[in-house]
């Protein structure tokens, strides 16, 4: 039985599945239910300065993108940080941490960009016995207009500065939560690293309008005839998050910086993928907002089963294993030549591969009157579109041409050695160097 215990920047939890700072972690009642269900830890929903709490809209706070059968693929929200008094939150955090000492309790924070403000709140969080803090530099709506959230996260100098203040004013580990609403995630992570962050967590939500109500001619969610951009999350954002996690994991300037992976984690497999790309653990939100807290049982069982099958006994056995295989395009092997192959037994003759290839790709699939679809090797560039649109898993596969075989498309013999763009004769840089 695999050991799922997690140690993230010294914060211990029975498993690597934390709940992200969000509505599910806004109060004791929810968090206790989460812990009862088996969640390894929580990042408490973002606390702000002492004083009158922020006010949320009273119309819809969420908008959704659906797949088939109303499966929720993406969620967008315009909710702000906690709208409950600071005192109440701190008291509850203390109670929950006391009652659940084996679970990770991290507190998300967002206060104005002044050192005193951060110093004040950090002291109060320390009193709760919480395990760490997460700096919310990511929230893309509502707070950013007030100079907080992503307004900080989008300026690397601010990220570094605030991180440094926090490190100077607390003994707790400091996790910096990054916004994806930037051009290069590495700039923000480098800044956090320079400021002394113990870890980064990402991604926060993505600026978005989920849809437009074509009767009201208004973005959704719609509040009294108006809408605003909100933060996008859920399964739809996972590919973006995975890339950003990988970018940081393989950046020489931040190598080794712990990462808490966030963004569309819905199943054990999603979690394993984030961790393979370098995340030390994951944070989940939309999945529990869709299905409730019980899904953690599937995540625990699924991860454990997979680790057993793979022979991994601890999380660190596979964490970061895929990072060395993330590279730049220019280093991909151009001598790796494949051709699509359609399994005629598995083919159900829908012709989607044909339509996709004929209309939008390389006219590399032939169709007989009997609806037999066959790849034309002399045209196939192995783009994989046929595989991607085929409704039958495993029906179309890619066959690698062995060294020495002739590629019927180019008429050239497949070389045995690795060869990439950096040395390719068509590369102007190569010619310039000559």
């Amino acid at each position, binding site marked *: 039985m695999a050991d799922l215990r997690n140690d993230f920047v010294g914060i211990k939890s029975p498993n690597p599945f934390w709940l992200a700072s969000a509505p599910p972690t806004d109060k004791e009642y929810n968090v206790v239910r989460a812990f009862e269900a088996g969640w390894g830890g929580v990042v408490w929903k973002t606390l702000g300065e002492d004083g009158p709490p922020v006010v949320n809209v009273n119309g819809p706070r969420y908008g959704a993108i659906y797949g*088939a*059968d109303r499966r929720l693929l993406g969620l967008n929200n315009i909710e702000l940080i906690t709208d409950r008094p600071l005192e109440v939150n701190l008291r509850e955090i203390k109670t929950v941490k006391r009652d659940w000492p084996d679970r990770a309790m991290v507190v998300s924070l967002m206060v104005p960009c002044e050192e005193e403000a951060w110093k004040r709140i950090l002291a109060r969080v320390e009193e709760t016995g919480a395990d760490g803090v997460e700096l919310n530099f990511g929230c893309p709506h509502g707070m950013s207009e007030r100079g907080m959230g992503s307004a900080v996260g989008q300026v690397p100098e601010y990220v570094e500065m605030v991180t440094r203040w926090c490190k100077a004013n607390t003994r707790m580990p400091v996790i910096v939560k990054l916004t994806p609403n930037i051009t290069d995630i590495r700039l923000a992570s480098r800044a956090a690293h320079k400021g002394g962050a113990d870890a980064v967590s990402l991604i926060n939500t993505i600026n978005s309008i989920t849809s437009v109500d074509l009767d009201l001619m208004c973005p959704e969610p719609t509040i009294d005839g108006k809408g605003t951009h909100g933060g996008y999350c859920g399964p739809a954002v996972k590919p973006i998050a995975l890339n950003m996690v990988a970018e940081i994991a393989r950046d020489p300037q931040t190598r080794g910086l712990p990462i808490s992976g966030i963004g569309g984690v819905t199943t054990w497999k999603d979690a394993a993928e984030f961790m393979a790309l370098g995340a030390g653990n994951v944070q989940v939100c939309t999945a529990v907002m869709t299905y409730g807290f019980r899904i953690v049982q599937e995540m625990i069982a699924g991860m454990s089963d997979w680790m057993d099958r793979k022979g991994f006994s601890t999380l660190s056995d596979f964490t970061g294993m895929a990072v060395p295989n993330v590279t730049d395009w220019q280093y991909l092997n151009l001598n790796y030549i494949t051709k699509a192959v359609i399994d005629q037994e598995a083919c159900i*003759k*829908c012709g989607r591969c044909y339509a996709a290839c004929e209309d939008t790709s390389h006219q590399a699939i032939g169709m007989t009157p009997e609806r037999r679809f066959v790849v034309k090797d002399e045209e196939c560039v192995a783009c994989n579109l046929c595989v991607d649109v085929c409704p039958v898993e495993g029906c179309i596969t890619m066959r690698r041409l062995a060294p020495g075989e002739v590629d019927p498309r180019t008429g050239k013999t497949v070389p045995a050695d690795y060869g990439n763009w950096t040395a390719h004769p068509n590369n102007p840089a190569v010619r310039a160097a000559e």
Partner: protein
Amino acid sequence: MANTPLTPGVVSGRLAPETYRDNFADKAPPLTAHEARVAADRCYFCHDAPCVTACPTAIDIPLFIREIATGAPRASARTIFEQNILGGMCARVCPTEQLCEEVCVREVAEGKPVEIGRLQRFATDILMAEGAHPFTRAEPTGKRVAVVGAGPAGLACAHRLAMKGHAVDLFDAKPKAGGLNEYGIAAYKTVNDFAQAEVEWLLGIGGIAVHNGKALGRDLSLDGLRSEYDAIFLAIGLGGVNALRAEGEERSHVRDAVDFIAELRQTKDLSALPVGRHVVVIGGGMTAVDAAVQSKLLGAENVTMVYRRGREAMSASEAEQNLAASKGVRIVTGAAPLRLLGEGAVEAVEFAYTKETDAGLELTGETFRLKADQVLKAIGQSLEGAPEGLALSGRKIAVTGPGRTSLPGVWVGGDCAAGGDDLTVTAVAEGRDAAKDIHATLMGEG
């Protein structure tokens, strides 16, 4: 004392009033909007889709399903109606399991096709419920066309001709238009007087004058029509019924299934419709199933359908056979009627088992009897009263191309035309295609 299923003889009121209502309710209730979205999402939008090829009217099925999936059911209905103006009825009566759904790649792959028929009904119901007609009539051409027979073929032809701007006189022998849609299909397939609602909606194109109670050979003659109109389309169906040629066929309570069904369809109060306690239906087609199932639904205690060949040769689809079985109809195959026994009224039918030989179907000599106080004959219909001068092919009117007959200016389609398969949807296709050919001919494009 009210009658029950056990009351001997052919009597009415065997069931409680609400049981009639339940029994004759919609066989396949319409999909809800969410069900339709989910069902539509299963469509793979196949290239050169097999379902389209299998549809006699070649509806662009992947397109109309995608239009449902994307929340545009009215556009979807229009896609359907462009090819098949009786798409509403076809959605209800098509043996989809033998047509589009049989070749759906998901049927082939998983044994569970996209529910094309039900989706078609979903879209067409929405547009038709709004009452608006989706097409506009072209400028009048000044040409006049007579369409004889207001069944599926005649209606489809009349609609397409009217759409092209021709003036159509649509004649039918019966008091109502609709043909078999109105008189020949099981009630639970077309509830709420759908056949008449569909005719009325179809006529919304304008330019079609309906003349009921006008039969060819009685009130109209082909020569007369030819002298008066620029073109004629005959869709007179199959007015005759095949005889059993079994001893005792003349006994009372022995009748043609088509008459029984027609009477049922025109009966407002089904509790007033008499049905036997022991009903024997002879035949293996859709009409036999419709008669057998409806007998059972009217309260008959025992209903047996007897077909002379094997089950695989039955023209009733497997789904229809299953429906009959699920309603408690017993299906006996490989037996042919020898004699109808009884004193005046029929009391039993004697059958002989059959076997297939190289020489054809032969009786084995072994016989059995089924108790019967009502016998419904459903062994096929035949062409009756075809006008003189039209070349026949077999027992139907010969056609070349899209419904052209041996007489210039005269087209045919539907069940009376050779080459069809007696399906509503095929009749629609033939009517539509003949209309296109008539139009091309009249406008000098042919």
